[in-house]
């Protein structure tokens, strides 16, 4: 399964190794790991999602990347629920013959995930809870893939 949405943490080394396990035609693996940043006294981050849509949306983004670059393997893991500062939130791993495709596809998947996959972050701070606002810069990041 290329896409997982789960509360549980994941094993970074095992997920990265699995991208090329049992094959010798892969020359490059690019990975992205997103963490909960503990800015401004953040106590925890809660991630809500739209269960019926989330995996479908992520699979659609992966399919777009696979149509655009020659990729041998793709893995996307996004955690949901309550996470603490420093915890892992998201993993994207992409395997290809050459590094350009791996780097670009990894960035493409993250840019689309940020703006098209139905996740919402809520911050818990000592002053109370607040929903994180979407950033215009995330939407603008898509322009480079047009």
């Amino acid at each position: 399964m290329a896409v997982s949405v789960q509360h549980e943490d994941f094993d970074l080394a095992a997920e990265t190794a699995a991208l090329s396990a049992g094959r010798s035609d892969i020359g490059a693996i690019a990975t992205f790991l997103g963490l909960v940043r503990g800015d401004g006294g953040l106590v925890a981050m809660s991630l809500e999602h739209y269960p019926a849509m989330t995996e479908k949306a992520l699979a659609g983004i992966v399919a777009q990347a696979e149509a655009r670059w020659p990729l041998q393997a793709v893995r996307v893991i996004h955690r949901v629920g309550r996470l603490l500062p420093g915890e892992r939130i998201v993993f994207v791993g992409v395997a290809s013959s050459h590094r350009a495709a791996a780097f670009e596809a990894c960035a493409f998947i993250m840019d689309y995930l940020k703006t098209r996959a139905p996740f919402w972050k809520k911050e818990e701070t000592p002053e109370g809870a607040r929903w994180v606002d979407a950033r215009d810069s995330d939407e603008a990041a898509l322009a480079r893939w047009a």
Partner: protein
Amino acid sequence: MSVKILYFASLRETLGCAEETLESLPAGVTTAGGLREWLCARGGDWSALAPDKAVRAAVNQSLAQAASPLAEGDEIAFFPPVTGG
């Protein structure tokens, strides 16, 4: 046939509603944008769906536009711009 409407994140909290089912599409409502206008017309907290508010929609679990057509049996979701990753 009925239509199911889901609300997420800050919109769900503002409306005090996560999910509702209409027995059928309201008369004259044929698009996602039309349904949004119909819901907004309920007034009060439902003005969170007003045209000047940043609200996204999905029809049958795919992102939709205001002009996206609706049919009986659809699942429609409204939510704020996403903030995952």
